[in-house]
């Protein structure tokens, strides 16, 4: 049995309106990548041009951000629930 990924409202246009999908993987990173393979139009919103998960896309395993666990390498098991949660960022054109 795969893990469940909860989809934020903003990305449901790319999952045929589904609020949750199933994906397989031994780690959180693998499950998210498998999900992106199933719904390729969502890929550009999750990953940057170099294939790295965008910094403002957060993945929660249960109630814990995987950044506080083992990141993309966080192990997941059948029945786990991953939630995609965006951090919202922006600013002026003035460079850092």
């Amino acid at each position: 049995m795969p893990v469940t990924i909860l989809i934020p409202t903003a990305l449901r246009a790319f999952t045929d309106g589904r609020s949750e999908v199933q994906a397989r993987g031994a780690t959180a990173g693998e499950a998210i990548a498998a999900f992106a393979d199933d719904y390729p139009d969502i890929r550009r919103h999750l990953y940057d041009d170099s294939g790295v998960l965008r910094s403002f896309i957060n993945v929660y395993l249960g109630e814990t951000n995987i950044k506080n666990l083992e990141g993309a390498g966080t192990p997941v098991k059948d029945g786990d629930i991953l939630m995609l949660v965006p951090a919202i960022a922006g600013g002026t054109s003035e460079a850092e």
Partner: protein
Amino acid sequence: MISLGRAVRLAINAEGERAYPDECCGVMLGSIGEAGDRRVTAIIGVENAREDGERYHRFVIEPEDFMRAEAEARRMGLDVLGFYHSHPDHPAEPSDYDREHAMPFYSYVIVSVEEGTASELTSWELAADRSEFFRMSCGE
């Protein structure tokens, strides 16, 4: 088309002025009509989580604040329609930084705050291919 209403518009302006010379930020709650028109009926101001020395030109709403806003929207029977932030002493136009960090679907409202006084307010949505923002009509 997004309708903010006078009270919401004034509240965003006031937050932008209060935060000046830093950027303010917050979440817009409301509903979407059958024709896709959006009406913002409430806002939740969020503390700009960027570090000291960066808030004058950057903002971030942490995922925990986002989840709290989503829960509040559900409690009120509303949806999270998007986010607002201010551009202190810069035009109310999205920057490349805004675009790189934006999500589809959401409305991004920007208020320009010139020398401490709110001026132009605009609303934008990200193109599906992330290549650009579209300016949306912004009504009362």
